């Protein structure tokens, strides 16, 4: 168990966590500001990946393809918000759950009709090699790109939310929607914008992760549940919570999968270790969530007091 292995896994965890953050950020704002539970958020992530695949094929350039997919997905997200999701804000949570669940079914099939069950999005060859970060520590360049992109967006988001007027409106809406309304904020436009931004973030994550995971129908659901775990841990409505939660989940999950079975092998007999190790590893983040919830049912940084 060398430090190189540990460092690698830690970086993998960070990379995954940052992508989770992109999904979680949009999701937590929708929950926090619109008080709406949107199960179809993962579908936007899927759409982003599929659109990126098409654009990359059309333009022949990975960068161009990814960059085109972002506004395209954002536009689709905003159309969805205006046409359908807007009607759900006033409804009860059960209706929102069922309607957005229906949306998942519809979007999955729609994607299957247009693209088929999966689409290719290969890693750009320029980035497929490793980079030597430190003597002895070589890390795939592409994953470094993801980390870089994730961190940049996190900083950009922080700047937007904390230092600009729009960000202030968003924060106000997240902590007290009625008050924001009373202060004359154009809620409808704000909501559409927030939704579009969330969709854009999903597209970035979807497109960037596509070469590593596969682009296929149904890819949104699994990562959606992880995003839920992140938000529950971080606190609804809080971007800071989303970041902390996402990195925590990413690192715990990755390191857990890599080292828990080994650790179990050290402390327990092989038969127990080989059965229990992987099982505990796959649920480590849910256990983390349960523990955090027990002490802080509102998460680590809830936006609402």
């Amino acid at each position: 168990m060398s430090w190189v292995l540990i460092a690698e896994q830690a970086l993998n965890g960070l990379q995954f966590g940052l992508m989770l953050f992109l999904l979680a950020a949009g999701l937590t704002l929708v929950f926090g500001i619109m008080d709406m539970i949107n199960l179809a958020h993962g579908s936007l992530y899927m759409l982003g990946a599929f659109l990126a695949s098409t654009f990359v094929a059309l333009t022949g350039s990975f960068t161009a393809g990814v960059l085109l997919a972002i506004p395209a997905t954002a536009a689709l997200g905003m159309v969805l918000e205006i046409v359908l999701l807007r009607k759900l804000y006033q409804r009860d949570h059960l209706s929102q759950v069922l309607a957005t669940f229906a949306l998942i079914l519809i979007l999955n099939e729609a994607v299957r009709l247009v693209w088929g069950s999966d689409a290719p999005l290969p890693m750009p060859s320029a980035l497929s090699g490793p980079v030597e970060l430190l003597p002895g520590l070589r890390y795939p360049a592409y994953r470094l790109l993801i980390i870089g992109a994730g961190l940049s967006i996190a900083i950009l988001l922080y700047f937007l939310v904390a230092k600009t007027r729009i960000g202030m409106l968003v924060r106000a809406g997240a902590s007290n929607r009625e008050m924001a309304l009373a202060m004359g904020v154009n809620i409808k436009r704000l909501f559409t914008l927030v939704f579009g931004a969330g969709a854009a973030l999903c597209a970035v994550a979807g497109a960037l992760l596509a070469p590593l995971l596969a682009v296929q129908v149904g890819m949104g659901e699994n990562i959606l549940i992880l995003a839920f775990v992140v938000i529950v841990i971080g606190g609804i409505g809080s971007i800071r919570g989303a970041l902390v939660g996402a990195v925590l989940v990413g690192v715990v999950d990755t390191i857990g999968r890599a080292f828990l079975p080994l650790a179990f092998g050290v402390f327990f007999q092989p038969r127990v270790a080989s059965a229990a190790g992987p099982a505990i590893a796959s649920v480590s983040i849910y256990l983390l969530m349960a523990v955090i919830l027990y002490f802080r049912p509102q998460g680590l940084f809830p936006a609402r007091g």
Partner: protein
Amino acid sequence: MKKNIFLLIVFLSFPLVMQAADNLFYVSFASRVMIYAIAATSLNLALGYGGMISFGHAAFVGAGAYAASICIVEGLTSAWLGWPAAMAAAAAAAWLIGAVSLRTRGVYFIMITLAFAQMAFYLVNSMKAYGGDEGLTLPQRASGLGNEVAFYYVVLLLLSLTLLLLHRLVNSRFGRVIVAIRENEARAEAVGLPVFRYRLACFVIAGAFAGLAGALLASHGKYVNPNVLHWSQSGELMIMVILGGVGRLWGGAIGAAVLLGLEHLITDYPIGWLERIAPNYQDHAGLGIGLVLLAIVLFAPQGLAGLADGRKRAAA
């Protein structure tokens, strides 16, 4: 009352008629519908009456299915042992998940139940000793109920008991409290009711009956695999409940019958003219179901039972 007796006669004689016609497929299908009716009814208790939007109900079905399967595989083939064990296992799972989840509210609760159900899915998936992701095939049904007609009657009996219990429960003290908590939780607490305790009890009872459905499901197909715990199964149960009518006694049963019936019709009875416009439409059944569900949520949130009630009232 006369309508109920008529229904009873139909249900009782159905398998015998089918047996005479040498068509046992539909007897088996009817059993499957009734099993899902039990599962959907159990969800209706937690969700429709209790107001707890649990997106992880499939975990309890799965707990029951696996508990019953493990009993059979380990040689304990009596249903008298396996099925109560399944209910106990599911109830225990509901207790654990509920104890943590019910401290939270609103969107948190929905997400947490979903997350825990997913956790259960992964746990079961990694249980190599009992099939892992390939699933577990059972050598026989519980108590050797291989005869389709006999199995049908057993399931019919259990479904009837479940519905009877739900009916009594709803009108009992407990039922009143549960509905009051759903109506105004703060007020319920303010008249001296320990809200958490009652909610948890409701959640656990619902979980137990989901476990029963799971045990029956495992016996029915003589097979169980982790997919029975997948959150999309929770979604299907929710669709059944809203289709049939949230918070109405027959909601779960009606929803199960309609959804499974539709699915069967779509996959096994291709519609000629539809095929010409949209070949392979059967592969995209999800689209239709999604659109129907969306339509119901937007336009008929009371479900089919609600529509029927509305029409009865209008006619009166």
